[in-house]
Structures are given as structure tokens and as C-alpha cells.
């Protein structure tokens, strides 16, 4: 039982997944490598047909209108069953901004294309010298009639290589506070003047990119809200997804996987590592931490739905705790693999049909790669140091 209850709904979600999700896609996703675009497209279309793609959006924009509790249950069931995740930048970040602040034309054009999976979105906020200090961004947008001419560089742009659009924070004024001169633009990634250069991660995958803008023309009609108000919108967006960055489903999946790895015959001598009380105890300790973390999430959700306690620093708590737990679970999974963790399991070769003489153990496929990639979880989405600053600032306010 999850801390969030609602077993009937859970069963409905399970039945849908069982009927619609191809098993090879599920196995591929559960390995833990970066998602394949065709899988994401396929699953987004399935969800959209059922009306479940935009689970976090209000009904009037084609969303489910579900309570946060229901959304969380849904996310968890999808994650544990191996459903490819929908393009997060589109559904969790730019979509909500478009329906909250965008004009009618923007809503009508973009939202259906996000729901159907026709448009994948990238987030173009960070720059080489504007990471934690995002407001220091320098990509310039200069107005010329009904267009902006954009010049500059974004970095760490996740999945830009297969996205159709990017939403950017750009500088439209250098006057006043640096937060004051920022605007929020929607940019077609196929526009002339855009160059995308890959950045390979330590796990060997290609998620990250640099995106260069050279005299890129963006219609003023693609600005969200008012000029120089982009910072306010972005802040709204960064605070909005309370449950998403808690990575509860991912942690749960990893705990289950670690237990399975340690339960293999011969994982310790002729027996099983999980029967070693020292190991079992350490896994149990993380499972208890995860239980408390999930309950914290559930409590925040309950408070949010009841409209109480709005100003506590809990979103930052959820992000810090979730991401650090994820890294600890990953390290324990590797420990449980022991020597089988050592081979590099290159994604393409091993997805579903490893060669007969493949080294290592199938239980290990994707584990180290996932662990290495998630070193970034304590860095992106507001580094944990910055999150701790936020927590302290809220707690110590006079």
C-alpha cells in the first residue's frame, strides 16, 4: 500500500497499463537508460487518447484535473511498470506556463501539440555563466518591429537534440536589477541561426546540449506575458512542481531493484546477499528513509490540497531528500552487484537481447549508467546547496 491510498484508482491505472504498454518497451524503460524518443511518442499518444497525457493540467486545457494525490499514484504506477515518461519539460514546465500566462492564440496552438506528443520541448534557461545564479543570464533579445533578434548561448539543455521547441529566458533590458530585464520566449528549434552541440555525460549518454543562437528571429507573438516580466513567470514555474522533484517513484523503483539484485541466487557465496543481515539492514534503513520521505510528500500534498501551511520550505526539503536518497540507493545497488557492476554495458548492445557471451549479469544492465547520470540530480533543478540556502532563509526569517 502506498501512503497515498486510493486503491480503486490504482487498479484502474494498472489495468490500463497492462492493456496498452508493450512488454519490450516496458523492459527497455525499466533498464534505466535514457528514454528513446519513439517510445515516448508512442506512449504519449496512448495516454492522450485516454485523456491522461496532461495529468497535471486543468480539465479546460485537456488535462485530467486530478488531485495531486491521484497524480502521484498515477506517476508511481507508470514508473514501476516501465512506462516511458512523457517529455517533462513540455508537460511539467512550459505547458503550465502557457495555460497560466499565455494568450489564447498560444494556448490554442501549443497545448494540443504538447498533449499529443507532436511537440517536444527543451528548457533553455541555464548559460555558462548563469547556473545557480540564473538571473545573470546574457542571451540577448533585441526587438525589431514584430520580431526579436536573439543572440547568445544556452547550456545543459536537456534533450534539445530531439526537441521541436525551446522555451528561453532572454535578456531584453540591462536596466535596473538583473531580474528585471528578462523575458520568456518560445523558440522554434528549427529556426535559422540555431546550432545544437551535444554534451556527453559521465554515464556515456547524450542528454545534454549546448544551444547557440545567432541572429535568430523570434516573432513577438511567441513571447509569454509581458516584456521584462519573464523572471516572475519562471519563478512561478520553478516553485510549481512540488511532487515532481521528490523523485519518489524513481526511489521506490530503485529500492525494489536493489532488493531483487540482492536476492539473486549466488549473490553471496552459494546463498543470497539479502540473507546477510548486515546488508538487509542497510537496505531496510534506506527503505525506512524512503517511507518517511514519501509520507512527507503525502503530508505536503494534503496540506496543499487543504490550502494550509503554504509558506513552509517543504518543496526544497522534498528535492534535497529525494535526490540524496536516490544516490544512496544507487550506491547500494552497485554494492549488491559487486563484480557484475564493473563491465560497461553499452546501451545499444544490451537493450533487450544481449549476446550469448555477454559479460557480467543481466541484473546489472543500466544500473551503473543510471547511478552515474543521477549524480546530476543534486545539481539540476536548483542545486542542493542552493535548496538548503532556501530552507535556511525561510526558517530564519525574522
Amino acid at each position, binding site marked *: 500500500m502506498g501512503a497515498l491510498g486510493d486503491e480503486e484508482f490504482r487498479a484502474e491505472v494498472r489495468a490500463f497499463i497492462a492493456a496498452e504498454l508493450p512488454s519490450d518497451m516496458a523492459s527497455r524503460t525499466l533498464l534505466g537508460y535514457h528514454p528513446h524518443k519513439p517510445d515516448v511518442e508512442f506512449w504519449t499518444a496512448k495516454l492522450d487518447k485516454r485523456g491522461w497525457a496532461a495529468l497535471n493540467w486543468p480539465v479546460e486545457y485537456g488535462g485530467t484535473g486530478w488531485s495531486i494525490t491521484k497524480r502521484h499514484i498515477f506517476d508511481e504506477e507508470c514508473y514501476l511498470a516501465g512506462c516511458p515518461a512523457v517529455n517533462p519539460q513540455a508537460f511539467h514546465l512550459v505547458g503550465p506556463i502557457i495555460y497560466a500566462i499565455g494568450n489564447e492564440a498560444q494556448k490554442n496552438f501549443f497545448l494540443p501539440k504538447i498533449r499529443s506528443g507532436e511537440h517536444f520541448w527543451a528548457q533553455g534557461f*541555464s548559460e555558462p*555563466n548563469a*547556473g*545557480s*545564479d540564473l538571473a*545573470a543570464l546574457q542571451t540577448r533579445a533585441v526587438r525589431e518591429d514584430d520580431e526579436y533578434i536573439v543572440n547568445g548561448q544556452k*547550456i*545543459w539543455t536537456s534533450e534539445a537534440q530531439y526537441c521541436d521547441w525551446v522555451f528561453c529566458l532572454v535578456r531584453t533590458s540591462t536596466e535596473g536589477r538583473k531580474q528585471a530585464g528578462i523575458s520568456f520566449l518560445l523558440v522554434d528549434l528549427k529556426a535559422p541561426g540555431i546550432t545544437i552541440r551535444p*554534451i*556527453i*555525460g*559521465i554515464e*556515456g549518454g547524450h542528454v*545534454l546540449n549546448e544551444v547557440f543562437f545567432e541572429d535568430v528571429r523570434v516573432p513577438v507573438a511567441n513571447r509569454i506575458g509581458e516584456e521584462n516580466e519573464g523572471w516572475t513567470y519562471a519563478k512561478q514555474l520553478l516553485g510549481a512542481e512540488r511532487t515532481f522533484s521528490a523523485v519518489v517513484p524513481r526511489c521506490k523503483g530503485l529500492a525494489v531493484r536493489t532488493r531483487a539484485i540482492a536476492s539473486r541466487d*549466488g*549473490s*553471496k*557465496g*552459494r546463498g543470497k*546477499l539479502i540473507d546477510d543481515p*548486515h*546488508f538487509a539492514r*542497510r537496505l531496510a534503513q534506506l527503505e525506512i528513509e524512503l517511507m518517511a520521505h514519501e509520507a512527507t510528500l503525502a503530508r505536503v500534498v494534503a496540506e496543499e490540497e487543504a490550502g494550509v501551511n503554504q509558506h513552509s520550505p517543504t518543496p526544497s526539503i522534498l528535492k534535497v531528500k529525494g535526490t540524496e536518497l536516490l*544516490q544512496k540507493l544507487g*550506491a547500494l545497488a*552497485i*554494492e549488491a*552487484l*559487486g*563484480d*557484475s*557492476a*564493473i*563491465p*560497461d*554495458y553499452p546501451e545499444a548492445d544490451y537493450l533487450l537481447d544481449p549476446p550469448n*557471451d555477454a*559479460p*557480467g*549479469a543481466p541484473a546489472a544492465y543500466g544500473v*551503473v*549508467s543510471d*547511478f*552515474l*547520470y543521477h*549524480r*546530476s540530480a*543534486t*545539481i*539540476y533543478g536548483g*542545486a*542542493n*546547496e542552493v535548496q*538548503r*540556502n532556501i530552507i535556511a532563509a525561510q526558517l530564519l526569517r525574522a
Partner: protein
Amino acid sequence: MELHFLPTEEQAMLRDSVRRWAAGRDVRAAGDQQVDWAYGAEQGWLMAGLPEEAGGLGGSDADSAVIAEELGRALVRTGFVESGMVAAQLLLAIAPERAEEIAMGGVQPVLAHDEPGMRACYLNVTTRAENVEGGWKLSGRKSAIVGTPTSLVVSARMPDAAVGLFEISAEDAPLRSYETFDGRTGGELTLEATPAELLLVGKPAESALLEAIDRALVLESAEALGAMEAAFDMTRDYLMTRKQYGQLIGEFQALRHRIADMFIELEQARSILVIGLGGLAGSNPQERARLAAATRARVAQAGQFVCGQAIQLHGGIGVTDEYPVGHFFKRITAFAARHGGEARQVERFAELS
């Protein structure tokens, strides 16, 4: 137990010479392992840890550790520790008549002892030796063989349950090579009645094997220490150059405390290595094993923290393949995964205490 806290003059010179050689290397790339190996053999790295009467240069494991630390700093992938300092010395102890070939690097042996579920229960050898028509045949599975061996020193259980050490030339060995996730060459042996030469059997084999394992635990820890140092130095420099919010990130107190904690851990690792080396120099095998376990456990603990935080303090650049710091983290992650992991070595320490 005699502990050596300060390097000798010779060790300081040795350190400098290895560091000079390694200085220009790209830590992100494996380089040419055969070229490295030939250079190291010529420099006497393989024999640095051996007394003269054993064909060495009159040194000790502490000399090998100096080399290993520098190799770790530069993330040298070549198996100098695995082949040169551990397996070659084991082979030499068993077959002194092969001293010259071994010292010149003409044979590159690797110890094939670990098995998938062994988890540092080192005497739980399940690979079996059978005597068939006057020759020996081995069956079983050996894992995590790191390096590019020309010859494998394989442990197996004899028909009378004693431990035997065998040699199989790499050409005749069913070795499945792979690249490790930290960019080294790894391998697995699936032995199915594979012919092997018997080297040594019974108590002498067991004690030679256990000594080699302890040496591996300690000298690999020295390499890991080098990797931590390099990751630490890089992070310290980064804190003094990267600016956010109009100031050096090294001015943020949270990061000042973190780099201080990293340094504290680094120093603990450096210190426990002295203990581990003291154990290797001693004459009591149980004490040697206990201290080797302690060394491995403490260095793994410190290394995971230091290299993990080295990435963290770099922010996004730290998780890219192009920037070196992640490669140190990968090396430490692999180091910590082997030999049963940190927790298992702690448990061994308790068992041996």
C-alpha cells in the same frame, strides 16, 4: 609494527619521476596500455616493491604504493598494480627461476581469483580442479580480471579441497574481455575443463594467495588515494575560479565547509594507507589481512565522498565526459564495488579482530 609516515629520499625521487611521466597524460583516455607497460617495466616499477634477494630493486611495498598513488592521480588504466605489483610478485615468489622474464615485463600476469558471489570471502573458491590423465583441468567462473594479461594465475579447489594455484596462458584461456565502466580492460573467465599448469598447492598456495590479495587491497587503495587527490585539487582550484552571484563560489560558507570535509577525509585515507603498508611489511598474516581490510574500507569510504563531492561542487560541468572530474569518480566507484565493497571489508575487519 613499524610505520613510515615520511617518504624516504628515494621515494620522493620516485614520486617525482612518475609524476613527471604522468603529467602530460589525458586522464580521460586509456592511452596505449602496451606502451605504458613497456615503459613501466623499463623504469623498474614492476620490481620496485621487491627486495634484492627476490630479484627486485631492494624496495618494499611502500615504494610500490608511491608509484601506485601517482598512477592513480593520472588515472593510468594499465594494470601496473594488478599485474606488476600483485600477480607478478606472486608468480615470482612461486617460480623464482622466471625472475628475469617477469622483471622485464615479458609476462603480464593477472590473478584470476574473484568469483561472482565471492564478495571477499577469499577462501570460498568454487572453481574446481580435476586431474585428468595426468594433467589438470579447471571448471568455474572468474570475474573482475582487470588488465591485459598474457598469463592468468587462477585459484581453484583441488579434489582434496585444498586450494591450488594454476597458470593458464592468455592464448589458451577462455577470457571474455570487456571495457569496464571506468574505461579499463576487464575480463571474465568461464572455465570448462580448461587445461592449466599447477603452480602451487595446499597451505603454501593459500598463504601466497592471501598475501597477494592483501597487497592488492592496499596498493589499489594507494591508487585510489591518488585519484582522490587529483579530484580534490581540481575542485579546490575550481572553487577559486568559478564565480556565481558576483563572487567566487569558494566564498560560500557551505562550500568552504564541504571542501574542508573533503580534505579531512582525504587525510584519513592517506593515514590509513600507512597502516595498511605497515601490515604488509609485518610478519603476521592475520594482522596483515585485518589492516588491509581496514585500509580498503576506509579509503573506499573517503573516496566515494571526496570524488562525489568533487562532482557536486563543479555543478553541471562535473557530470560531463569532457571534464576530468567525473572520470575520477568512476574510478572510485569501480574501486568501491570490487572486493565486496566497503561494508564487506568492514565486516572482514571485525571477523579478523
